């Protein structure tokens, strides 16, 4: 195509490529971080929502997202069962340990029969954990090269055999028997929290109140309140994402501004020729803006590809989930294009106001 815009971009391939990469970087950062953040958040949300219990009973200060204290006595299990309106109870130990590329992983200790029955979880391959060295995992973890019969290291070097795979995903991706985890943590008769399922969900508030009256000084929460705000409970996530978006826009704009400024300085005489040919200010500005937008558009595509590739790679290397969001894709596209357009505007306006005689004489 015999177009000034396209030919100008092709004339300086290295500079054009760097400009494209600058825009791509901003776009990729937005897509990658929001994709991973939302992937993580939605995954947590999904696994949390596969809990049928309406009430969580724990010690005060527990059940923050990273809480792993094992300080609740399991003596409460039969006591809670006796509260009016309670259908079933099951204790859970949640433990975080150093692991893998991400550095932290999670395992839960459960009484499998009561836990699986309460939360409608079933073993889809293999069997429930029966011996102290057995563990069950969810499908996502199993897909990362952990079939039934394989081994997984927990607590650093301790090897556990994958006895089964369960579905749906719920809470930690790996579960072992409560007794096994209690022994490993040297916390006999202890757990992190107790799930309570009520007979009539419409009475969960009343049941929670009864539990609080029966066992004051403990923390009683409704699961619908905890799990509905997963994203908000990750401190500053929303703010972080917004700051990231703004920074990405600034990066894109600055890259384009610098590229256009350099380009226009080199092409001062060409701008003088355009003016001598009768090109209006609007024409000159629009030509430069079109060039910037074309670079930004290509940067956008490269950025999406980079984000998709990096997201896929990160997912393969860790357990993080990259989630493509059309809303954030549009935001990233707007950032790339708007940043490019705004960044080019000042150099374009300067070019349009050049004195044509001086511009023609420019060497």
């Amino acid at each position, binding site marked *: 195509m*015999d177009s000034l815009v396209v030919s*100008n971009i092709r004339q300086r391939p290295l500079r054009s490529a760097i400009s494209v990469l600058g825009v791509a970087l901003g776009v990729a950062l937005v897509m990658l971080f929001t994709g991973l953040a939302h992937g993580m958040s939605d995954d947590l949300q999904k696994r949390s929502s596969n809990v049928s219990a309406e009430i969580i009973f724990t010690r005060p200060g527990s059940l923050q997202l990273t809480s792993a204290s094992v300080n609740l006595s399991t003596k409460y299990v039969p006591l809670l069962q006796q509260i009016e309106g309670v259908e079933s109870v099951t204790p859970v130990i949640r433990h975080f340990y150093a692991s893998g590329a991400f550095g932290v992983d999670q395992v839960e200790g459960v009484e499998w029969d009561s836990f699986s029955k309460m939360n409608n979880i079933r073993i889809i391959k293999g069997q429930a954990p029966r011996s102290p060295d057995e563990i069950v995992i969810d499908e996502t973890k199993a897909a990362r090269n952990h079939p039934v019969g394989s081994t997984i290291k927990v607590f650093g070097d301790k090897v556990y055999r994958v006895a089964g795979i369960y579905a749906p995903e719920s809470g930690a991706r790996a579960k072992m028997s409560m007794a096994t985890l209690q022994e490993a943590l040297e916390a006999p008769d202890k757990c992190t929290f107790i799930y309570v399922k009520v007979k009539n969900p419409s009475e969960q508030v009343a049941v929670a109140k009864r539990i609080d009256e029966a066992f004051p000084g403990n923390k009683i929460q409704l699961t619908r309140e905890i799990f509905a705000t997963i994203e908000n409970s990750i401190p500053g996530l929303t703010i972080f994402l917004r700051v990231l978006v703004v920074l990405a826009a600034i990066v894109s704009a600055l890259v384009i501004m610098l590229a256009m400024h350099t380009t226009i300085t080199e092409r001062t*005489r060409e701008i003088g020729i355009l003016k*001598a040919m*009768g*090109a209006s200010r609007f*024409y000159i500005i629009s030509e430069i803006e079109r060039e910037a937008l074309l670079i930004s558009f290509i940067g956008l595509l490269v950025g999406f590809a980079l984000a998709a590739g990096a997201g896929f790679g990160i997912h393969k290397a860790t357990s993080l989930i990259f989630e493509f969001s059309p809303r954030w894709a549009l935001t990233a596209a707007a950032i790339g294009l708007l940043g490019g357009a705004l960044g080019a505007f000042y150099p374009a306006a300067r070019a349009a106001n050049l004195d044509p*005689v001086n511009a*023609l004489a420019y060497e």
Partner: protein
Amino acid sequence: MATILKADNLEKIYRVGKVDVPALRGVSLAAQEGEFIGIMGPSGCGKSTMLHLLGGLLTPTKGRIVIDGEDLTAATDAKRTDIRRRKIGFVFQRFNLFPTLTAEGNLRLAERIQGNGADDPDRRREILRMLRLEDKMHHKPLELSGGEQQRVALARAVVNRPAIVLADEPTGNLDSENSEIVLNMFRELNDRFNQTIIMITHNPEAAAACQRIIQMRDGHIV
């Protein structure tokens, strides 16, 4: 023949630091439609300044310019640009082609600047054919000789049928053979299409192609 250009008492003073430098000191001239006028004079006599004023690239300190019925001096910058776009074609000593576009692409650019959806491939080819460039249409300037580049520049200047072509030393960067070719093209445009041309030149051969010569010295017409 109608008067296509009239310049009355043009003055142009440049402010250089704290010093006023007069480049034109009251120059008047008129060009009839279809005239081929040459402007000659020593360096610094104000030839280029006058050409730039006639083309609306500069505004005079005093005086008036009317091109094809439109007052250039009373116009705003945007209006002057508009008049230049519609009425004037420039040919420069240094050709000033866009190096990234082909010969035809340079003409197409002139059409796009003209606006109004102008896109006449037949006219572009006709002009390039007339200027003996039909086999160079898809070549970029670096692939053309000096004479060929100047002919492309001439084609670009006339593709939108301007009222006047202003040429600033069009043969200044050419050898005698290519100068002859380019001058013949100017003559042909003038003879066949009644194109009005005002040309600055130091070249006696170029001056010989003109119907009228205007001599300038020290900012005056002598």
